[in-house]
Structure formats: C-alpha cells, structure tokens
C-alpha cells in the first residue's frame, strides 16, 4: 500500500546515524562536501553558532554568517534527512557581488579560501574573531639562510597548505619537496645587507606554527601549457592515517641540522618549544573529487570527532549531498589514493585471457583534513580541567615554555611538577629563545618573528581550541543555537514529526479499520432485488404447479447469464464513457485524472418517505395475488428467505442501536470522524492526487453507509468536500 502514495514524509527522516545531509542546488557539491567537513569540527561549529549577528538591520537573506548559522543549526537540530541550501547559496556572493551561480561547478579549495575571507570579515569585532586562526590558522616561515649566518625570516599565515601531487608518490615526499628550498647562487646570489655583499643563500619555506586542524590542498589541477587548459592529475598519491610533522617544521629542520653536526646523539638534548604530541596528526576528513576538470562531483569522507549515541568508537561517514552513509575507513586506499586499476580482459566465453587493461581511477582525494591527536583524557572532565589550569604549577623562568605547551596536555602538567630543571642535564641545548635572538635584533627583519610572544599566542590559541572542544563535549555534543533559529527549526520539526506519523500507510489502515468497526457489513445491508430473483419468484408463483423445479432453475440460469452479459456490456460502455470524460477532464483539471470519486448525494428524507409509500403500495398489490395462488413449499421458502434477509437487516440495525447511547451515537461519530479526517487533513493537501486510494476508500465507505448517512442528515456539502 505504501507504494501507492507519492508522499511519504518518513523517507525524509534524518539518517539513523544522526547526521543531516545537504541538498545539491545543481552543481553545489563542492560547497556541500566542504561545509560538512567544517560542521564536523566542533570548535568551529560552536564559534559560528555562538557568533552574535550584529547586522540585524540588514537583510538576513544576504547575510552569509546568519545563513551559515542557520545551516549549521539545521545540520545539528533538524529531524529531516537534508537541509535545503538555497538560502545559503543566495547569501554567498561571487566576485561581482552577485549570488553564486548554483549550476556552475567550482573548485572546492577556491570556495574554502573565499568563504574564509568572507567569514573573517564578518567575524571582525566579535568575540569569535580569532576562531578561524585558533582552529585552522598556522604560519609558514620564509627563510633566507646565507652562508654568512645573517638569517632573514618572514612569517606567512595560512589556512591551507598546497602540496604537489605531480611526480610525487606520497604526502611525505610532497612535504619534503615543500621544505627543500633552493640555493641562490651565481647571479642569483642574495645580497646580505649586514655584510654588504652577495652570498650563497638557501631559500626555503618551512612550517612555523601548526594549527589544530591542518588543511592540505592536493594540487591535482595543473595548467597544461600545451593544451592551454587545466588538466586533472589522477596519479596515485598515498597519504597516511597518522603523520608526524616535526621534520617539516622550523624547529624540526633545525634539530636535524644540529644532529648532523653533532658527533653523537647521546651528547645532544634538545629543549624544543613543543611537546612531541604537538606534531602528531591523524586524518579526520577527505574531500574527494571524482571526474575530470570539466565534469565532476565532490563528496566527503569524515570521521566523527566524538562517538555519539552511546557508542564507544568514532565512526567514518560518507557525506554525499543528501546522503549520509557509514564508511569503512579501510576503503580509503581504493576510494581516495587515485592511481590505476588493472582489470583482467575477458575472452569471448567470459574467461580471463591473462591480459590486463589499465583503468585510471578518477576518484581521488583533493583536500585532506588532519587533526592534531587529541589527548585520550580529553573527554574526561576532571583531567581536562586540570590540563587547562596552570594555577598550581610553580612558575619559574625555566619552565615558562613548558607551562605554555602543557596547556593542552594534562599529563604533562602533572609530570612537570616533579620534573627537575633541564639546563643542568644538557651538553648541547637548543633554546629557541636564545637561538632566535640575533634575528630579533635584526631591525630589518620581521618584528613578529618567532619568539616568546608568538609562541604564547600559539599556546593560547591551542588552549581556546581545547576549551571549545571541552565545552562541546559538556553540552552533550551540541553547540548552542540562538533561540529564534532554534524555535524555527523545532516548529518545523514538530510539524514534520506529526506529518511522518499521519501520512503513513499503517495510520491509514488503522483509521480505515476503526471507522468500519461499527458499520454494518455488506451482506447485512439492504440491497436491490435483481431481475433474476424477481423472475424466479414470479415464475415460481405462476408455474409452480405446472413446471418442474429443474425447468425453473434452467430458465433462471439463462436470465442470470443474460444479466451478466448486460452488466459486462454496461461496464464496458461506462469505461469507454469514463475514458472519454477523463480525456476531456484532463485538459481541464489534472486532479480529476487520478480518480476523484463521484459524489454520492444522499437522498432526502422526503424522497425516502415516497419510496416507502411505493413499497407499501407494491406490497398491498402483491398481497391479493399471493392470496389467489395456492401457497406452495417453494413460495414459503422464498418468503422465508425474504424474511431472513429482513431479519438480518433489522438485526444489524438493532446491533447498531444497542451501542447507541442517548448522548453518544457511534455511527454518527464514525461518519463525522471520517469526514473530519478527510476534510481537515487530507483535503488540505495542495495535491489531492497524492491520496487517490484513501479517497476511493472513503467513497466506498460512504456508499456502504448510504442509509446511515441519510439517517443522520449528512449534508451534500460535506460530501462534496471529498471531491
């Protein structure tokens, strides 16, 4: 029965996994895939939802921050399977200030950068101003290392790092290339302003500060100068589930260089700014692009950050527009690494020929989201509180840096209390503060180079990130949503839940069974006497003494056959007429095409009285005839059958009346309820055609209870509501 309805809200129910999808507006999968990635980062979600919208007086339709808040709120609170992103798309303007063209595919990384630009502007002056930096913001360091030792460094903040895919097998190789740098020699020598002469110089870019969420953009779209167009690189590119990024950071590289120079590692103890955990990252999301430069599709694989619904382990999901499905993380190599497949070539009989053909995998990772490994005790409230509090730790000059780095690692704080000062144990100590001093003294260098202040800012940023994460966990893994938005969503949720329950085949069946409980069954209802029965009776009455039973029955059979044939003909004619009518009506009104029922207008009381009078007259006429003929056994039988039918009718009426109370009439309530059910709920549907079966059922119901409805003066007005 369920298949006969075109409207099934249950299908729009939120995935049982607890996540809501996003509707694709044509070619907006690049938005959807990235927005889901951002939504699943709790501190970012919390910051966006808690940002107070200062531009209340402006049109909210054009307010990107408001629309993003609304979208995140729906993703968190909605009961529906997906959210319609049309308002968000409308608020997201292109370079010309026009709403983005939703039917035009865009680059996901470009969208990421533009979105962050816009958000940065909108969050200015708000408490959440630093959120983007706290969560995604890192810093690169462009270094010039001349032979003379007069280093120059400039910082470059980043939200994403672009890594090469071309000719690289894996992420590690790309990072090595990233920090490798180049030697400026010969004519290209760097002019050292301190020495006032050109010197051979190493120019490189290294990672200075790592953000809690590291976004890596794989450069798969390369400009082909021969074809003068962008081409997608589908070559295999492996990335690990966990990665240690220390080797690619400034301090990591310096450590390497020192180690090279040191005679033995045993004599070397390095006192770096960050603990080892700072460099440990694990994969938490992949934006996949499938297809070519011109035609393609984006979707995301994302790891939930905290296990929900009482589960012990976090799961991975595939967020593909409106669909949210569990994803087996072991499938990442097949789904994200790209490369080629070797497919065996089959012979004419379907047997493998031994030869293989190569097929390029067009589905591969485009953006990688790595997240700093969270301390295992993060979700343990007590531990986290301790980790965020440094009040009980004695603050001395020597452990200042340790205090800062310990802000996100409770265990370290405790360990540090018992730890002896490090300076006495070191033969060669690399203290960043001392090492960087000459650069700070360099007046022409960037004043915001790495140093105490900068590292303090980094640690504060990390603290804020973990505080937000903790708050999120405390709130039952929900970010707080502003009341007006929340009320709107829940109003919609309530209506949706009710619709889900009511527009349901089981509910229809229940109502149908209920309204039929007290209606007489078809065989209990009075019915018209057929021609065959009439003839049978008259023949029996006239010829009972002349003809045998068999002959009468034969004649009746012939009449019945004739009647059946007539009926078939009538039906065919009716169907033809109906079809003709339908065709005519189709042109006029679509709703009739789906079979709006004929209205059975109940007869008025006056008509019924007239009928009864006629019946009495007929009976009076029949009586003398019956008296004239001799009463045979067969006649007795026929009169008995009539009586029994009448008795059954009376019985059914008595049965109904037996339930009837002075103040309450189940029959009437039943009719009233059925009418109300249809008129109040279903007739309000914009398209009545969604409920043809139900309407037909009601039609049958009214026909069945024709006499009952007339008895209770069902007005034609009510009946007409069904059409």
């Amino acid at each position, binding site marked *: 029965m369920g298949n006969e309805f075109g*409207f099934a809200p249950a299908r729009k129910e939120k995935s*049982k996994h607890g996540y809501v999808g996003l509707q694709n507006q044509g070619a907006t999968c690049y938005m959807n895939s990235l927005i889901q990635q951002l939504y699943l980062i709790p501190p970012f979600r919390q910051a966006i939802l808690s940002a107070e919208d200062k531009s209340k007086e402006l049109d909210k339709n054009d307010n990107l921050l408001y629309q993003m808040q609304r979208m995140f709120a729906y993703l968190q609170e909605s009961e529906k*399977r997906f959210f319609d992103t049309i308002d968000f798309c409308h608020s997201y303007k292109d370079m010309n200030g026009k709403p983005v063209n939703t039917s035009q595919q865009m680059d996901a990384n470009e969208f990421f950068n533009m979105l962050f630009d816009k958000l940065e502007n909108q969050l200015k002056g708000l408490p959440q101003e630093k959120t983007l930096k706290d969560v995604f913001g890192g810093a690169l360091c462009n270094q010039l290392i001349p032979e003379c030792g007069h280093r120059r460094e400039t910082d470059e903040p980043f939200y994403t790092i672009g890594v090469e895919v071309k000719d690289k097998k894996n992420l590690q190789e790309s990072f090595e290339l990233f920090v490798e740098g180049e030697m400026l020699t010969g004519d290209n020598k760097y002019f050292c302003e301190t020495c006032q002469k050109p010197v051979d110089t190493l120019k490189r870019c290294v990672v200075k500060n790592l953000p809690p969420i590291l976004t890596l953009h794989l450069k798969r779209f390369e400009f082909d100068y021969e074809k003068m167009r962008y081409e997608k690189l589908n070559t295999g590119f492996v990335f690990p589930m966990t990665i240690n990024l220390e080797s690619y950071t400034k301090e990591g590289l310096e450590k390497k260089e020192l180690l090279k120079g040191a005679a033995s590692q045993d004599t070397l103890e390095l006192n770096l700014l960050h603990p080892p955990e700072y460099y440990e990252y694990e994969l938490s999301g992949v934006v996949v692009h499938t297809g070519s430069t011109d035609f393609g599709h984006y979707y995301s694989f994302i790891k939930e950050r905290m296990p929900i619904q009482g589960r012990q382990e976090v799961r991975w999901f595939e967020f593909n527009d409106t669909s949210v499905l569990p994803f087996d993380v072991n499938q990442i190599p097949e789904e994200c690494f790209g490369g080629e497949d070797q497919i065996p070539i089959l012979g004419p009989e379907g047997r493998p020929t031994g030869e293989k053909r190569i097929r390029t995998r067009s589905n591969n990772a485009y953006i990688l989201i790595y997240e700093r490994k969270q301390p295992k005790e993060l979700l343990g409230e007590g531990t986290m509180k301790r980790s965020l509090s440094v009040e009980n730790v004695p603050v001395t000059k020597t452990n200042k840096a340790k205090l800062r780095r310990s802000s996100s690692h409770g265990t370290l704080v405790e360990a540090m209390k018992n730890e002896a000062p490090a300076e006495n144990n070191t033969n060669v100590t690399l203290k960043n503060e001392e090492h960087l001093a000459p650069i700070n003294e360099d007046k022409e260098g960037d004043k915001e180079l790495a140093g105490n202040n900068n590292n303090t800012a980094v640690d504060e940023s990390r603290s804020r990130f973990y505080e937000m994460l903790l708050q999120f966990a405390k709130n039952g893994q929900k970010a707080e949503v502003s009341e007006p938005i929340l009320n709107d969503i829940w109003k*919609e949720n309530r209506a949706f839940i009710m619709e889900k*329950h009511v527009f349901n085949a*089981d509910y229809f069946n229940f109502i149908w069974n209920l309204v039929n409980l007290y209606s007489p069954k078809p065989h209990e209802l009075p019915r018209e006497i057929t021609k065959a029965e009439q003839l049978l009776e008259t023949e029996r009455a006239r010829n009972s003494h002349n003809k045998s039973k068999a002959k009468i029955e034969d004649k009746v059979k012939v009449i019945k056959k004739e009647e059946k044939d007539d009926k078939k003909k009538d039906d065919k004619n009716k169907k033809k007429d109906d079809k003709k009518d339908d065709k005519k009506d189709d042109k006029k009104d679509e709703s009739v095409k789906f079979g709006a029922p004929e209205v059975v207008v109940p007869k008025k009381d006056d008509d019924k009285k007239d009928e009864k009078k006629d019946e009495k007259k007929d009976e009076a006429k029949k009586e003398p005839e019956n008296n004239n003929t001799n009463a045979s056994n067969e006649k007795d039988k026929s009169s008995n059958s009539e009586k029994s039918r009448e008795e059954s009718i009376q019985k059914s009426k008595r049965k109904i009346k037996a339930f009837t109370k002075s103040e309450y009439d189940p029959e009437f*309530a039943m009719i009233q309820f059925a009418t109300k059910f249809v008129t109040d709920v279903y007739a309000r549907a914009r398209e009545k055609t969604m409920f043809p079966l139900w309407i037909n059922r009601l039609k049958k119901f009214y026909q069945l209870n024709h006499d009952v409805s007339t008895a209770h003066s069902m007005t034609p007005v009510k009946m007409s509501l069904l059409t």
Partner: protein
Amino acid sequence: MQAVPEAPASFLFKLLLSVLKEVDKYHDSCDQYFQLLEHLMKDYEGKDLPELLADFANKVIQHPIVEVSSTSEEDKVLIGVINLIYAIVRKDSNFKQQCAELKLLEEVLNNCLFAVPVSPIKSGPYGAKCKTKNSRQACFRLLTELARDCPNNFKDIVDLLNYQLKSCKCFFWHYPRHCINSS
C-alpha cells in the same frame, strides 16, 4: 481431597512471567520470550488477569523512550508488553473497559504513537515511544481491538484522534515539488 494439578501452560506462563521484571536487561533478544508468553496467554486459566493487565499497562506507561528513529532498532520490550495486553483483551473483551480506566488509551495514542517534543531536546531519544514500523503496528492493532465492541473506548479513541487532528493545523503543505519527488 486431591488438588487439581495446574495446567502445564499456566505453570509455564507463570514461570516466564516471574522474569518479566528483568526483561529490560535482555532488550535485544527478548522478542521470542514475549512471543511465547503471548502464545501461552491463550491457554492461561489464572484468575489474576486484571492484576496482570494493570501491571502491563503500568509497564507501558513507565517505559522510557528507546527508539531513536523509524529505521533504528525496535523496542522489543514495549512491543512485547503491548502484544500481551492485546492477547488479554482478545481473550476476554470485558477487560477493554479496564484498559480505558488504566489510562492505556491515552498512553498508547498520545505517548506511544503521536508524542511530539514541545521544546528542543538536548540529548537522548525523544518524541513517540514507538517509531519503528513493528512497534507502531502493535499499537494500532491494540487500539483497534480496544475499540471493537466497546463503544466507550471507541468514543474515547475518536475523541483523542479528533483532538490530535486539531493539532495538525500547523502542517506545512507548501512542499516544493522537487522535494516530494526527489527520493
């Protein structure tokens, strides 16, 4: 005089019933337990059916919301208890009126079938106790049976349904066509 031995079905029924209190511990695998109880109920000859009915009704009323969505795992305990009540009223229709007195009609219709959260819920399952197909069908079957040959129950159910229909006025009918046809 020698006492008449208890019928095996009744004996087994009582035995099984004695562990009903702990059935929540085995919510994942109790469906066959309830099926057996329901089957044995047909031949049960004990005179404590009114008390049993009251216990079952109370269990339905006090049962927490377990089902998360229509596609989640069904609440086998609630389905089992509702089916036991159904078996009792099928066995003896005189108990139908008692069900109404125990406020079972309101509970099943309002809380098991059509409960809608009034305010936003922060955590845990919410809404109707019965969200899956099987649990809702069990409720509908029970309500239909309670209304059969019992005009008072029929009246109460119709009144409750009418009241529920009144609350449907907030329906959004303006679904975009593509939303309707998309799935």
